């Protein structure tokens, strides 16, 4: 009841899906349609989990007057305001909701990421060391690519972009493919184990 039935569900649906790939018939595509129709209904409910956990975390912080609980206030406030705005004025173009997106989400997200450039600079100066021959190879390859990927490389000599292309098309290709094959197997194996109920950690819980 607690574990077996869910596992059975996964197994049965899973097997049907395996069959679906090999069986092109109408029946099998109808099965897909049915499944998708239902997941479409189930899907939206999941998001509530995320919201809830978030609210819980910060609510507790505030309740416990944990250090910096003021910031949790900010988070919750932002959450509530944005949601409310979305529901009150709707979410079409031109609503405050979109305005928030443009002026809060966009800059915050982008900047968050761009900080990395600075870290790289300092890392380049302080961290990226040719500790071993392997590391050296890595750094040299990196430098060539960095040059080859901007016009300056081309300006110096057309060899640099050519070598870059070569690095990307040959060693890089081999590396990526070698790794990808392994990873691909790994993913397939996991799907398999989940389907067969061998892998059940996604269900969580002990019982």
């Amino acid at each position, binding site marked *: 009841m607690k574990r077996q039935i869910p596992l059975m569900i996964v197994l049965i649906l899973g097997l049907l899906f*395996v069959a679906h*790939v*090999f*069986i*092109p*018939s*109408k029946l*099998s*595509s109808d099965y897909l349609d049915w499944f998708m129709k239902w997941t479409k209904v189930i899907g939206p409910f999941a998001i509530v*989990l*995320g919201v809830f956990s*978030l609210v819980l*975390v910060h609510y507790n912080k505030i309740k416990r007057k944990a250090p*910096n*609980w*003021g*910031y949790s*206030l*900010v988070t919750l406030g*932002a959450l509530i*305001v944005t949601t409310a705005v979305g529901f009150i*004025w*709707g979410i079409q*173009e*031109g609503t*405050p909701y979109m*305005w928030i997106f443009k002026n809060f989400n966009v800059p*915050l*997200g982008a900047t*968050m*990421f761009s*900080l*990395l450039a600075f*870290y*790289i600079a*300092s*890392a380049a100066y302080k*961290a990226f060391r040719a500790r071993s021959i392997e*590391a050296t190879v890595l*750094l040299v390859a990196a430098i060539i690519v960095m040059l080859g990927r901007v016009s300056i490389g081309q300006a110096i000599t057309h060899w640099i972009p050519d070598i870059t292309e070569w690095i990307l098309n040959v060693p890089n290709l081999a590396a*990526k493919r070698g*790794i990808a*094959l*392994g*990873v691909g*197997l*790994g*993913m*397939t*194996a*996991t799907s*398999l*184990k989940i389907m*067969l109920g*061998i*892998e059940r*950690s*996604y269900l*969580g819980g*002990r019982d």
Partner: protein
Amino acid sequence: MKVCSKFGLLLLIFTLLLVSSALGDMLPNNEPVEGLKIEDVPHDDGGGLMLSWKPLPKEKRIIEYRIYRGYTPDSLFYIGKIPVDAKTGVAADTMRYVDQGWTFFVDATSHAKLKHEKGQKKGTKGAEVLYRTVPRDMKVYGPMMDHYRMLAVIPDKEYLYHTKMREFTDVDTTEDGTIDTTSTILAGMKLEQVKYILTKLTVGKDYYYAIQALNMNRTASPLSEIASGRTTDDPPEKLKEFYAVDVTDKEQLQFEWSLPVFTSDQKQFNIYLYDEFDDQHLIFTRPDAYPYTPQTNAIVPYDSIAARFEAFNPANMKWYKFNIGEQDRQDQETLAKDEPIPAEMISSTTLPHPPVHFTVKDQPNDKGDQLQVYFGYPYYGLSKLTYNDEFTKLTVTYFITENSMYEVNRLILTINGTTKTEYVLDNKLDFKVNWDHTHPMEITGRFVCKHKGQAPLPEDYAVTHTFIFDTEMQVVLIDNPPNEQMKEFQEYYFQVYKINHTSDVYRYAKQMSFREREYIDKVSYETVQFRGRPRFSLDEKRLYFSTYLSIVNYKDHYPFYTQALYLDQLKQQDEEIKEEIVKLQAELETETDKEEIEKIENRINLMTEYIEDKPMIVKEANLLNSDKERMKMLYDDHCKNARSFKYYIRKTDGKGHFVDTPVYTAPNGEQYIFPKQNWFNTDEVITFIAVLLFTALVYFMIKAARKGKRLYIRPIAGIQEIDNAIGRATEMGRPILFVPGLSGISDVATLAGLAILSKVAKKAAEYDTKILVPCRDFIVLPIAQETVKEAHYEAGRPDTYDKNSVFFITQAQFAFVAGVNGIMIREKTATNFYMGMFWAESLLMTETGSMTGAIQIAGTDAVNQLPFFITTCDYTLIGEELYAASAYLSNQPLILGTLKAQDYMKLIIVITVVLGTILSTVHLTFFMNWFPTK
């Protein structure tokens, strides 16, 4: 405390800003849209009106113009909008909206009640007239239906099996005072049973329109003045082209013409012959299928002309002139040419040769909704030719078009003398040739096809392209100018015509260029029926549609042989006809006039025939006494007929010079081809084998591992590191950070990460060191919590487990990282583990980590993140090493077994690939061709 108040304040500001933005400040939106004009759409079926108006200045920050329509000026419904960019406004000085064709009217998801438009507060202009979209309230939309053309789209199942029969009797008095009652049986349905109902303007009615503009804050402008317009059904437009060709030896005339733009009320094409005295004779009519199908040509044999025009004499052909008329459903006709044109006289020898091996087959490996139409021998084209600067090395980029009868195995290319055979058709072939690039060159291709018992390719079949280097453009021009063969190819194209078993007009399925050799015709499963304007009953809340289902094209006598939905209805119909017959026979007694008698007799015969001579299936079905079963039987037959097709192909130059293949007849003599569904996808055999093999491996390896069988895993450097790192944290008395990746549980890396987490958490619990586990995925969260909890139990320190040490931050990728960084800095973590799936954000964490001087150990199979982990972390588990490590540490038979299984699979892959490569290197491509290319 001060901190919080400060930020409470900031928050307040932030909220205020929002409100202010919501109000904003721009030119008040207080002027209506001006100059609303409404015109009829030319050449149409009277189903279209065009609105035009002056857009408001861009200072008004308008984001959309909303259009309202009604059949009375006092109730207008929202029918659509034109979104505008607020910043830029509208450049043009007039805006247009065309209300044409079938548009959405109502369905079960429409508003429940009649709703006044938002922002139209009481008293403001338009408040009393503006409504939102048509509500699903029958009291409102029911009466509206009489003022438009209606088209309901109904799911088959609902229409056939879940309707409620109802008989309507209409009483009306004819002008001579006699009262006649007609009773009709209709099928009743609830609105939610109907997919949706479409609407279209109808001829000779007045429609009222008004426009309203919304600005950036979605505040509405005052309503524009209400303008009205009336549609007219215009005569069809003139056809641009018309060609007449007389194929003397075949004794037939061939006509070809261009298509009109507006086609929805196309009824038929009429071709006229003008004799030596300029008398007009109708010699050919081609009724148009409904829904419309484009048809651009016709063959008219002499004798069929003679049948309509006795004096016809081929000898006089040079005096005859021809013209074509396009006629719409209101019988308005427009002639193509002001002056009739004479026919071009040719003999069939100058016509092209029809395509060879024209075949129609059921498409394999499909769900029964595709047919293969193919013909001809393989073809190859050149997509690109590149050369090195010395013009000594040519790289030919080619493409092959083939069909399932002649599948190309090898391509043999020849450029002045040098011949190269392409074994692996990778669309690229290098040539070493000395090319005097100032002269054109020829490249000739021959094919070797797979043997499937088909007729071999003709010895001399080859395709030759010419190319020359254009010094101006600095490019290689291909087939420009074309050689003779290409000219011949390029001059003609193919038209695929098909007809199903429930209609009488061939449909134009597809135009194919001279390159194409195969056309997969999609024969979708039927899902809906279309029915015209329904009646409705407010008390029953039902719509009533006419009841019929087309069955088959019966003996070409009843092209659309239909049957009523209900048995009772059927009986009633037959009764009526029988009565009619009796009536007529009575008339016969009294009638004296010869012609009249003949007429009546004909009618009697027709009716008796209709009653007695019915298709087999219908007879059988009508014996059943359950409507449902009967319908099912008929519907199955209907689907079979509606989805089986006859095909022929016409090769034409668009100027009347065309030839047809005969209608394709399958070996079993059947002309109608029906797409069958398949139960195994033979393309996936190799996948099937691979899956079986791998499944077996995984299953048995795990079994073995569970049995405790010793499974060797080579020592992996860096497992040591993990222990050391934990130790370090303990010494420094600082917490450990463990990020189990950003993706969900469906990700193998996450699982491996969690496996390692349990070990790390255990160690940490033993050393009594705090461990922090931020999660991004809220399904991973509880699992991580469990894992850590269990670890503490195992370590015998349940007391030290703090539920809040495993927590959810947020879904958003970067926000999550921001959170993690914050933790690193505030909590001063001594050791950071990153085990699992990471995306572009990884560096942001490791950099911060290295700045805080923490020991960092990473493990991921996210290939593009590895270099960063390698250069910034103290140790990194590369790709599968992560799995291996988790197996090694946790010693779970599960992970161990899988790892082993993958190992063996890898071995198999390596062996297979080596084998395949050797074979392909010696030009044996059969092996690699077993494997899928995409």
